[in-house]
């Protein structure tokens, strides 16, 4: 465990040094992520210009939900995105051999090679959005609520990571994963919607089968309405289930890896 933490620290040091070398890239990517967050917030703002409620959620409740969803996504971008994005390309080019040759857990080595500081900086902006919405709603969460919120965000991060690993693992089966990672963003869109908006089959599929709705709704519910055991249990169960499935899919894919292909 300590060994892996030291490896992660070494990767983090390397990423920070690299960011300091390519400062323009850092500012550009920070701006890119900021813009995308702005686009999502603007969507909410535009819809609420024409209506007062979406599935019973007011504008600032919705802002809190979207801010929470963006926070999980920023952490994913900051900690794992670059490494996993490259993983898809490495599987295609055969450069993935490099990770197979390392004396450590392959998925860990391939997922933690790079940190993106721009994503991590923007997580502060997402936190700002959540704090602003909570302020406008006049919420005063207790320390325990905040701690639970943080745990729920961590669970959300693990679920998003698992979804991305499964998406990228498709590269083991198809010629190239180029463009496939975009599919993850499509699924992540659901996490910006309130649970109450899902009805019938959509509720079964996106709330119970895919965890995308629970990921953001569970932490948001804690801030809005305090500790709710059902939400917390659902999210923890989903975290274990999805992480386990992602590890399984990745290793099944790994069996098909044939080094340099096209």
């Amino acid at each position: 465990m300590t060994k892996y933490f030291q490896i992660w620290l070494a990767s983090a040091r390397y990423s920070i040094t690299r960011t300091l070398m390519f400062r323009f890239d850092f500012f550009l990517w920070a701006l890119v992520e900021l813009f995308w967050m702005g686009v999502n917030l603007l969507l909410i703002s535009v819809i609420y210009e024409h209506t007062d409620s979406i599935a019973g959620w007011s504008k600032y409740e919705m802002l809190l939900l979207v801010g929470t969803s963006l926070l999980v996504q920023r952490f994913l971008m900051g900690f794992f995105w670059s490494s996993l994005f490259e993983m898809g390309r490495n599987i295609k080019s055969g450069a993935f051999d490099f990770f197979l040759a390392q004396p450590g857990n392959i998925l860990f080595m391939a997922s933690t090679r790079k940190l993106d500081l721009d994503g991590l900086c923007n997580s502060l902006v997402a936190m700002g959005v959540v704090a602003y919405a909570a302020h406008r709603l006049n919420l005063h969460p207790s320390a325990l609520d905040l701690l639970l919120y943080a745990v729920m965000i961590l669970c959300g991060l693990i679920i998003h990571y698992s979804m991305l690993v499964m998406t990228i693992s498709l590269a083991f089966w198809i010629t190239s994963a180029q463009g496939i990672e975009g599919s993850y963003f499509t699924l992540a869109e659901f996490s910006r919607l309130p649970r109450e908006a899902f009805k019938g089959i959509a509720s079964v599929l996106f709330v119970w089968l895919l965890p995308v709705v629970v990921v953001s709704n569970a932490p948001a519910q804690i801030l809005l309405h305090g500790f709710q055991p059902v939400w917390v249990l659902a999210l923890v169960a989903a975290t274990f289930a999805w992480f386990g499935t992602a590890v399984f899919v990745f290793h099944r894919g790994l069996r098909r890896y044939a080094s340099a292909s096209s």
Partner: protein
Amino acid sequence: MLHAFAKYRQSFLIGLQSNLVYRMNFAVRGFFSLFHLAVVFILWGAAYSHNESIGGFSFGQTLTYFLVMLVMQFFVGAFNEDYQISEEIRSGLINQFILKPINYFSYRFSIFLAARLVTGALILIPLLVAVPLLKDYLTLPSEAWRYLLLTPAMMLSALIQFSIAYCFGMLTFWFLEIQGFVILSMAIESLLGGQMFPLDLLPAWIFHAAKFLPFYYQTYFPTAILTGRIEFAATIQGFGIQLLWVLVLLAVNQLLWTRGLRRHTAVGG
């Protein structure tokens, strides 16, 4: 003229073959676009539950707008042309085009057309699933002029889409990595191109200003023509601005190409 046509016909056919290799990727992307439609359906369905109309349009009209927008993206949108061009410059593959009697823009454009033919055909598969499910909601206006003007609007949109991607590809002559610029522009395009929400829901002054930007003509313009969100007079005026943007972007492309080649060191290839 015929000789030139034969030349680019060949690159079109090669483009068709190379894009068919990645048919699974496009098909998966098309399949995931159904999820995007589901998000639209759920979000806007919830917003419409207390309102008969939003911005003067019914739920059915808004849903039709997003479906047409999706199809439009697969038929005229640039996917990864900017990266392909960037890669050819960076790796030196572009050197062969400098030495041969071939126009690089026309060559890439013919491949772009082939790619859109493949992606356009592939989006029809998820549509076969989506349309029967949504048929009670979908509604299109009946005016004939909309259907007549749709094709030229789509052709000009494709030219704008490709030209913008080409411009970003050309940036590789100056910058090693263009991905940041591309994704930044994607955010702007998704907003001002009407992919996030119908542009007419924006405050009037922003909507008016957006009409003078090229992003409006990337996907929103043809979508608005087909879904009845724009009237005849405004469509004709739109064609004028769209044509102007095509000319401006073609000129910028040419400028970037000639200026870029001066910096090009022809390494590799």
